[in-house]
């Protein structure tokens, strides 16, 4: 049943999302492909909308996938699943040990987790890159395609803005304006 499937999938993702919501993209993509929930392009759109709406990225994305696959009950099941692991873990920490982060075991585990999260965000970068630049696959001439060049230009501009610490919402708004301008201007 879809609700139970959504709940347990996001419970699993919520138990293993370290280092912010971006590593989660790789996990959601893996599950979405396995369950046939959404396309890669839809997933990228969800990331953009989740960044431009209030609330944590992980919660927003869970709600999105949930509502798209199981309606409002689906959204509730997915959100509950993503929040429950951190809820339980923080309850235990708040009750038992406050010096948690200084614990040697925790530090050891984190020394392996941080680079792993970096690697997983690398995977998200590769798969989203393929969706952005080659939406219909690699074929001859796709590098001189007008839409390829537009996307490359927008990517370059927004990457510079991101590294200059411009707020993500402004970056996304500008990219939408650039996309609309280029799309109508060139009559794609």
């Amino acid at each position, binding site marked *: 049943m879809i609700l139970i499937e959504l709940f347990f999938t996001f419970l699993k993702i919520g138990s293993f999302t370290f280092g912010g919501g971006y590593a989660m993209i790789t996990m959601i993509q893996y599950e979405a492909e396995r369950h046939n929930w959404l396309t890669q392009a839809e997933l990228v759109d969800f990331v953009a909308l989740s960044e431009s709406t209030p609330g944590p990225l992980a919660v927003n994305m869970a709600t999105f996938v949930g509502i798209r696959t199981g309606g409002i009950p689906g959204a509730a099941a997915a959100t509950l699943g993503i929040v429950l692991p951190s809820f339980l873990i923080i309850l235990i920490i708040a009750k038992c040990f406050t010096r948690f982060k200084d614990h040697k075991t925790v530090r050891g585990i984190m020394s392996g987790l941080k680079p*792993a999260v970096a*690697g997983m*965000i690398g995977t998200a970068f590769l798969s989203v890159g393929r969706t952005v630049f080659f939406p219909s696959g690699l074929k001859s001439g796709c590098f001189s395609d007008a839409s390829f060049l537009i996307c490359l230009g927008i990517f370059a501009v927004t990457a510079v803005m991101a590294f200059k610490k411009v707020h993500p919402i402004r970056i*996304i708004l500008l990219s939408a304006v650039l996309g609309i301008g280029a799309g109508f201007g060139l009559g794609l």
Partner: protein
Amino acid sequence: MNLLPDLFLTFFKIGLFTFGGGYAMIPLIQREVCTNKKWLKEQELTDIVAIAESTPGPIAVNAATFVGFRTGGLTGACIATLGVVLPSFLVISLISFALNAFQDNKAVQYAFMGIRAAVLALILKALWMMFRSAKKNPFSYFIMGAALILTAFLKTDAVFVIIGCGLFGLIWSLRNRKEQSRDTD
């Protein structure tokens, strides 16, 4: 005001007015929870941020659960967490319906063409931040490469990668510590 409605409204406000999640949320949490309501000391909030880094889940949710529990026990933890999540839930539901209505619109399609390229840029930024916060040594680079290859090309479930790399980090640090203590003997 009673504690429980106060917890709910405060965290509802935090959930509603913080965009992008993560560290962007900390200043607002600090103002509401430490300065206005005095539920936590500044030092405790710093601890929560550090704990949130080493536990799964978003910082805002972790902070809500922690503050709720400290001030109002289990009920408080539930109420505060519900408060911080509810705005996301409502806003995303609305947007999802709007998206359904407008997705065939040409302008919306062009906008998303641009937005997808911007998301790629944001992911690059996140990658760079995470790369910088990891330790700079061969062990770290090896794990990065292994995690990338496993999830990108061999289509391994990321959960196994996370568990494996965490265990590997633990064993490695235990081994190093033993060697260090032998050196100092």
